[in-house]
């Protein structure tokens, strides 16, 4: 069976019965989603009936009609509003900016922050990425202060995140007192040692799975015990093996969150990113969600694209935000990132939630468009979505998502 899944005995679709939707077989059920993220889980006979056409007397009618799945009772105005809200027509600009501070000097930092604030958008997130805080502390210090002031001057909410492998307690204190969220880069291998503290106190973690990473539930407990608020798990490698290992680990991790999440403060950044339901909510989505800046002041389409000359957009000293649409790289990544333009994604039930950043395709498959059927990044995101959708019949899962302000009803 292909990634999209297929029926043993396919049903027949009668014109005028079903409104636009995609389907996916999940076990013995059929998941249907519309283009704007509304969904329903049907049995196979129910799905056959739905495609053949149902009337108001059918028990499926009250389930499917309010969710906009019936062609005969379709709310065109509401659908147009949702299309506007969720499509690129509502995009305001990249909200996330990764500043790769290693090798950046103060003048470069100043120009970079100024470029970031030339980008439109209702709010800005600056992620300061560095390895060891000692090596770049003056730049971190300056960016934290300057970005805060620029936010006040432009009257825009600014969120600052400092992501590092190590920093001293003084440095962590400084960042905390300046409202900077701290994120620690971790490598997970084997089982956690509950008594072992992370390198520094942080609210967020980016945790790359090692080949031997085991006991996801115990790791979730470890994150919870050390006061983390959210975690983004990363696969050990972007190949078939890495994707399978990631899917197993993530499933266990999310399972723990479903069981204990209501009482715990820990959140899964993958789930939040995907269920945001907009291309510009997907972490690392080139230009739409993120721009990245390296130590030499070069601007890239995303952090994943950093050091790729083909995805360099220019220099913070000379580039203007309004020039971006005219650059060939911009057109190329935006076209390649849209699920409607990808043969597999355009038919996928997770199309309203998911897309693989073109820079990830380029890095791992050699081209911006990638080959979705063999893409490990696609398998990973599909696996996460399968896990979430399979759990939506569980009230605990719905309560957890509700707590995270995700509306999946």
């Amino acid at each position, binding site marked *: 069976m292909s*990634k999209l899944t297929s*029926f043993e005995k396919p049903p*027949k*679709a009668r014109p005028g019965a079903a409104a636009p939707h995609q389907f996916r077989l999940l076990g013995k059920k059929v998941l249907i989603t519309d283009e704007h993220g509304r969904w329903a889980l049907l049995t196979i006979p129910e799905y056959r009936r739905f495609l053949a056409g149902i009337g108001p007397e059918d028990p499926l009618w009250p389930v499917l009609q309010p969710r906009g799945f019936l062609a005969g009772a379709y709310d065109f105005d509401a659908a147009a509003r949702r*299309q506007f809200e969720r499509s690129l027509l509502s995009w305001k600009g990249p909200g996330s900016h990764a500043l790769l501070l290693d090798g950046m000097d103060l003048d470069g930092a100043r120009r970079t922050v100024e470029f970031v604030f030339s980008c439109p958008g209702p709010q800005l997130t600056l992620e300061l990425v560095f390895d060891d805080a000692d090596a770049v502390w*003056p730049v971190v210090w*300056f960016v934290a202060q300057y970005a805060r002031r620029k936010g006040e*001057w432009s009257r825009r909410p600014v969120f600052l995140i400092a992501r590092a492998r190590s920093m001293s307690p003084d440095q962590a204190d400084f960042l905390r007192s300046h409202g900077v969220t701290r994120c620690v880069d971790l490598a997970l291998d084997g089982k956690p040692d509950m008594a072992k503290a992370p390198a520094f106190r942080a609210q967020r973690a980016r945790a790359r799975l090692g080949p031997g990473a085991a006991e996801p539930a115990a790791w979730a407990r470890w994150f919870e015990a050390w006061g983390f608020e959210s975690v983004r798990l990363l696969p050990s490698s972007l190949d078939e093996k890495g994707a399978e290992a990631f899917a197993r680990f993530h499933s266990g991790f999310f399972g723990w969150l479903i069981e204990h999440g209501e009482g715990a403060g820990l959140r899964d950044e993958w789930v939040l990113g995907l269920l945001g339901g907009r291309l510009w909510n997907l972490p690392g989505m080139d230009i739409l969600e993120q721009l990245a800046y390296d130590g030499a002041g070069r601007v890239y389409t995303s952090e994943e694209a950093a050091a790729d000359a083909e995805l360099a957009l220019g220099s913070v000293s000379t580039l203007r935000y309004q020039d971006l649409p005219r650059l060939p790289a911009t057109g190329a990544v935006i076209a390649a990132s849209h699920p409607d333009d990808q043969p597999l994604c355009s038919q996928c039930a997770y199309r309203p939630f998911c897309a693989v950043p073109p820079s990830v395709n380029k890095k791992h498959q050699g081209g911006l468009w990638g080959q979705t059927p063999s893409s490990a990044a696609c398998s990973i995101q599909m696996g996460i979505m399968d896990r979430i959708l399979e759990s939506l019949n569980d009230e605990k899962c719905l309560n957890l998502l509700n707590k995270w302000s995700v509306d999946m009803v």
Partner: protein
Amino acid sequence: MKSKKKTAKKAPKLSPKKKPAAVAPKISSLEAALTLDVKTEGLEPVFGAAYLMMDKAFVQLSGDRAGKITVILRPKDPKATTPKALAEEFLSDLASQKVRWAISRNNQPVREFIAEQAVLIANGTIPPPSAAEAAPEPAAEELTAEQRAEIEKLISEVESEIKTMNEKKSVPDPKGIKASWEEKQEQENKA
């Protein structure tokens, strides 16, 4: 009512539909070849099913877009799958592709209308869904002289911060008196 029924147009008697011959793949030890009638199967479903095989097979398409297309499937990893299994999977996907394309074709006018309406909302021809969406963008900022002075001050503060840092580094603390909880944890872990 009765007469109405009588006058209603009678459906023309259809000659028994010719069922398309089941696609019989030609299978060898290296590959599977399927010849498909484009009119029966549809061009898009054939392309769609071929694309979906790309993770397991090398796919070669040849023939006439308006007539018959031959699909040749060769396993990428002969140990993982066989040409026969590939052919079966292709046919299964092809059948589901026909359903997907039928749903898509049936709804093409709906999707076009919705996209058009959404563009009209974006253009302001139709009112936006909420006031928040219509909120004006923050104006591009021009720095005042005061703000420029503050940046200069900030930079001089960074310089003094660097000085303090360097001074701190030079004060020895062999017993780790100044070490915080996190540093002590790290030392204990190392031990």
